[in-house]
């Protein structure tokens, strides 16, 4: 009896925390089929199909997914590399930990602003390159801010999310690492085998939930996209907001359909994250 009551409370509590988003999904869903929201024109799935049939929507989704994946991968590789290089407690190692983790509280907005100042074709790097004679003018500087590929976006967000993944890596190596590695060695594994069979799998399992969090945070970032992306294709959050502000009120509903698309990506990530957490705990 008591257990059943507890089961209900936990689910209700989770549901309450999710409620604002669930209501938002329902509202966006109604608005997307024309039953609510600005510019509603009566029920009909036409708008959803129009948005789903518009290559621009998918270009935006692909841009966001692709850049988020690249930035996450770079940040994860860097975090694991730094984590493995500085496993000790010596002064230099502690300094490396501090330097890695320190930029953790930097908002996306600030990272993006710094990214523009540093990486644009007339930014600080371009000026240094000009000063030492590497380039003759801004046009010769590789284009990374406002470029269709989103190189500057990827670099900036990889830099921004590196501290979080580094933090998790340090913590995994300090807590789960030693015991498992010790056990492997007593069973006769060579250092190389221990690294390949124990340390790396332990890290990848342990890091996966954090990696999914980082991916979804980057894919959903509005302000960094607005400052660093090009005008085409646009990141999904930026395209969504542009549609939301369209002067043609009948296009406003497209924003709700795009909102749903963003939420679908979010829900997928939630499912993956939950699965990864379970898997990660099993492995730990």
């Amino acid at each position, binding site marked *: 009896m008591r257990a059943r009551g507890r089961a209900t409370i936990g689910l209700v509590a*989770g549901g309450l925390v999710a409620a604002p988003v669930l209501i938002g999904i329902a509202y966006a869903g109604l608005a997307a089929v024309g039953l609510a929201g600005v510019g509603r024109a009566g029920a009909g799935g036409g708008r959803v199909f129009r948005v789903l049939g518009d290559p621009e929507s998918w270009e935006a989704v692909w841009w966001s997914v692709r850049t988020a994946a690249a930035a996450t991968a770079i940040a994860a590789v860097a975090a694991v590399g730094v984590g493995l290089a500085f496993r000790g407690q010596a002064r230099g190692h502690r300094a490396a930990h501090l330097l890695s983790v320190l930029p953790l*509280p930097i*908002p996306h907005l600030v990272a993006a*602003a710094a990214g523009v100042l540093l990486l644009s074709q007339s930014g600080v790097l371009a*000026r240094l390159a000009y000063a030492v004679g590497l380039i003759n003018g801004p046009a010769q500087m590789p284009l990374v801010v406002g470029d269709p590929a989103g190189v500057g976006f990827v670099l900036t967000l990889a830099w921004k999310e590196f501290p979080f993944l580094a933090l998790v890596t*340090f913590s995994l190596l300090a807590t789960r690492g030693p015991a498992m590695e010790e056990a492997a060695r007593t069973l006769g594994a060579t250092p190389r085998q221990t690294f390949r069979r124990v340390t790396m799998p332990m890290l990848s399992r342990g890091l996966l939930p954090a990696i999914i969090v980082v991916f979804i945070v980057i894919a959903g970032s509005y302000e960094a996209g607005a400052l660093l992306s090009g005008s085409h294709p646009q990141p999904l959050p930026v395209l969504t907001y542009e549609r*939301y502000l369209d002067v043609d009120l009948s296009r406003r509903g497209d924003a709700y359909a795009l*909102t749903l698309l963003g939420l679908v990506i979010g*829900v997928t990530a939630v499912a993956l*994250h939950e699965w990864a957490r379970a898997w990660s705990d099993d492995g730990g």
Partner: protein
Amino acid sequence: MGVSRANAASRAVLLAALTVSAGTPFVVLGVTSAAGSWFFPAVWPASWTGDAWALLAGSLGSATWASTAIATSTAALSCLVGWPTGRAIAALSGWRRHLAAALAFLPVAAPAIAVGIGAQYFFLRVGLAGTWAGVVLAHAIPASGLASLYFLSVFLTVDLRMEDEARSLGAGPWLVLARVTVPALRRQVAEAAALGFLVSWSQVPLTLLVGGGTVRTLPIQVFSYLHAGEERYAAAGALLLVVPPMLVLGAAVFATGRTEVVTA
């Protein structure tokens, strides 16, 4: 021997790279915040001005105050929601726990612009749009989800048998909470509050949509300056956004000598 020397050298290079990586943005923002005319290809500004920092007495100062108040309230609110939610979810098992945890994670994973567009109508409806309270509530949507997940991991790992002991001595549930559980988890509560504070402190889209521009937090002010091409002001605001939380984090890492400050 040769290997370890090579390792030491590569570590030194890596350490230098980390220093540059952590420091460069601050140098660039710091110089920009005080630069007068600074056109390509000048590596260094031709003139300096303190007018951006003078805004501490004006727009940047009031935005810092607004952000501090809103982020502190969000932190408190998200702990109040996250603690019981995390604890209730921790009491579950099997698919129920997975489902409840997934629900709590949803507000964290949903793109803020999507959450904001979905929520704007309701905040307007109940008269909370454009108010500080409304912005706090909006920020609390993702912050509470994060705090719930955080407390879930806390309650899955900590040993709460001391509660039973206190109860066996006749203490009521509120007394146990106030005198035993919360004091024992002080560090975890502080970390959860720090997470909630940061979610709110760096939020842009939800403030934009629910605050309607009338609630001027520091990120909104910085975003607005960037939009106007007022880089000097934006850089000063950006530094205000990062320096205080970094000092707190640095102090925490330094004081504890630990690195697992956050384990979301």
